[in-house]
């Protein structure tokens, strides 16, 4: 039996199932949290009708999405059109495989974990591009075009802001990076690399299409951008994928800069989740506070500020390490 199913494979399959459950559950929690945060900022109660404190609201939302008709536009390329949302969610479990949630809670402990994650989240661009192209809708096409140039531009400073940590720790293994940081905030990499952290976080916002960089789905300009034509679960999957990418981006930030699972007192997955959720709430605050930037301003910020700054930061780090 063990010959047919190697232990590694079983572990990965079980991990994938657990990760999908984790993503789905977190999707529900984040929908609720997002609406409550929005309510808090906008000085209204947020959802409170469905279930105690509105806790069942995300379930009701999900049920509504599932119950809706899956509509395909007449001129759309049917195969690509329905492939796109699947392709958007597909890289998520792979990327989450390599993330160390706790000292003993990591599915795949490989030494190129960081590269794996960065490579797979890049696939989302392809999904959005396909969605925009195959919908046969001009707004969707414009949204997809925006997304491609945005993602291509922000991929560069993202990598440049991650590299200093790799220089310092000398490894791409996320487990080792986590383990190398101490329990207290002053032992985390954010203290030595504050610039890299800020750049990473801005790029993460842009990569996950969150406000103020949510240009591919800017509803006041492009109605709904790339997912204009999607209804029901087509939209639902894109929505879930967006939250999943937020979780991935915040998890990587927590591992690289905030000490991963380490924390004062007992180290464990609770510290990791606390840090991830802290970053997620910061992202939500941004969304409900700021107006949207314009497209050229978005790219200017990237090419004129983030890339030079990240490069200088990287060079200084390299110099300090070399000395």
């Amino acid at each position: 039996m063990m010959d047919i199913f190697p232990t590694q494979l079983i572990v990965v399959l079980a991990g994938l199932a657990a990760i999908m459950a984790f993503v789905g559950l977190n999707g529900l929690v984040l929908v609720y949290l997002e609406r409550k945060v929005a309510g808090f900022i906008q000085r209204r109660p947020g959802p409170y009708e469905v279930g105690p404190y509105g806790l069942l609201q995300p379930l009701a939302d999900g049920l509504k999405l599932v119950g809706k008709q899956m509509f395909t536009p007449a001129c759309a390329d049917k195969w690509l059109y329905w492939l796109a949302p699947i392709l958007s969610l597909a890289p998520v479990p792979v990327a989450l495989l390599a993330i160390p949630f706790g000292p003993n809670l990591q599915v795949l402990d490989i030494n190129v974990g960081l590269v794996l994650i960065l490579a797979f989240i890049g696939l989302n661009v392809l999904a959005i591009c396909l969605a925009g192209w195959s919908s046969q809708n001009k707004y969707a096409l414009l949204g997809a075009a925006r997304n491609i140039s945005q993602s291509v531009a922000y991929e560069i400073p993202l990598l440049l802001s991650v590299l200093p940590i790799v220089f310092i720790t000398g490894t791409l293994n996320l487990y080792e990076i986590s383990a190398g940081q101490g329990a207290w905030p002053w032992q985390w990499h954010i203290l030595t690399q504050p610039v890299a952290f800020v750049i990473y976080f801005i790029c993460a916002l842009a990569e996950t299409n969150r406000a103020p960089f949510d240009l591919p789905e800017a509803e006041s300009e492009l109605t709904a951008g790339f997912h204009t034509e999607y209804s029901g679960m087509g939209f639902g999957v894109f929505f879930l994928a967006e939250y999943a990418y937020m979780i991935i981006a915040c998890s990587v930030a927590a591992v690289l800069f905030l000490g991963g699972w380490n924390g004062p007192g007992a180290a464990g997955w609770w510290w990791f989740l606390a840090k991830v959720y802290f970053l997620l709430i910061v992202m939500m605050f941004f969304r409900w506070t700021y107006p949207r930037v314009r497209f050229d301003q978005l790219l200017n910020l990237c090419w004129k500020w983030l890339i030079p700054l990240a490069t200088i930061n990287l060079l200084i780090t390299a110099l300090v390490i070399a000395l």
Partner: protein
Amino acid sequence: MNLDLRLDGSGDFYARKFQPDLRKDRLILNMGPQHPSTHGVLRILLEVDGEYIVRAEPVLGYVHRMQEKMGEIRTYPQYLPNMGRVDYLHALAWNWAYVGAVERLMGIEVPPRAEFIRVITCELNRIKSHLLWWGAYLLDLGAFTPIMYAFADRERLMDILQRITGSRLTFCYYRFGGVSTDVDQRFIQEVRAFCHDFDERLKTFTDLVTDNVILRSRVEEVGEITPEVCRDYGATGPVLRGSGVGYDVRRAEPYSVYPRLDFQIPVYDQCDALARYLVRMDEMRQSVTIVLQALDALPPGDHIHPLAPRRPCPPPGDVYFSVESARGQVGVHLVSDGGESPYRVKLRSPSFSNLSLLADVAEGSLISDAVSTLGSLDLVIPEIDR
């Protein structure tokens, strides 16, 4: 799969007339009539080169309700409620323009108390209209929260006005020779309390939104409208005052008791969306000043002239009366043949003129900037189509 995204052959009359003729790689984008940032059923045909607009053409008439024709077949009082529906956001300005025209034609005297009540309610309505514009404009720019803050204050104003006028949005409050109901002490107290709190709120709005760096970059040097363009298209209101021309009907052709009140006409000469934004923010502050002065000066007496006709039959002739609404100069041109209903009513709506210049201004700008410009014009579509 047909990937030729131009609307050749397909589309309606306007789309077919709007074909790109020079280059084949341009896109015709049909913005509206159902689009989140046109706030209603405005439709704009855009020829875009990438994200840059080459040509823009507004298509009107989706909420054409024959307001002017209705004026011809209804008696004078029957036409009063229509005025609240032309511009539903500043309904009292249209109320005023219409009753003012009839009063001028018939020579009806309005008691001073009624004049002051009109000033107070009209200015409160102006604040209400500007608040909604503020929230909706920032929504256009992608900020979701300000509209909730604006609505909190707007709600309070609606509650105050509802008790006196009987409606919350499409007011029909002014009558020939006065207003329909007198204000009471509670109204005066509520308005004073609102004015007191609203000063603080405006400061909050400035701190939270106006000084935001992202907002600044979205409105500064965007949608520049020169005074010449304003003159060409007949733009009025904050659009004109944002272009450095200090024209305000309340000053230029004073009506009612405005000459007795002390207030500023905010003018900014940067000509961009920010200038129009700041004009409106300052106007809200000025409206508060006007309301407070009018409350102090509110004389006792009748709220409607005791001899005001209930079924007026103005003498033959024509008259024009204009007031300053939140969007600009609102005018009613009335021609009477001596009958119970007007012979002809012509409504001069500021939004129509303000929209017309969009085609000029949007040319060569980004789609996002066009949305920002469109929002900064503060259009009310039923007023354009009438």
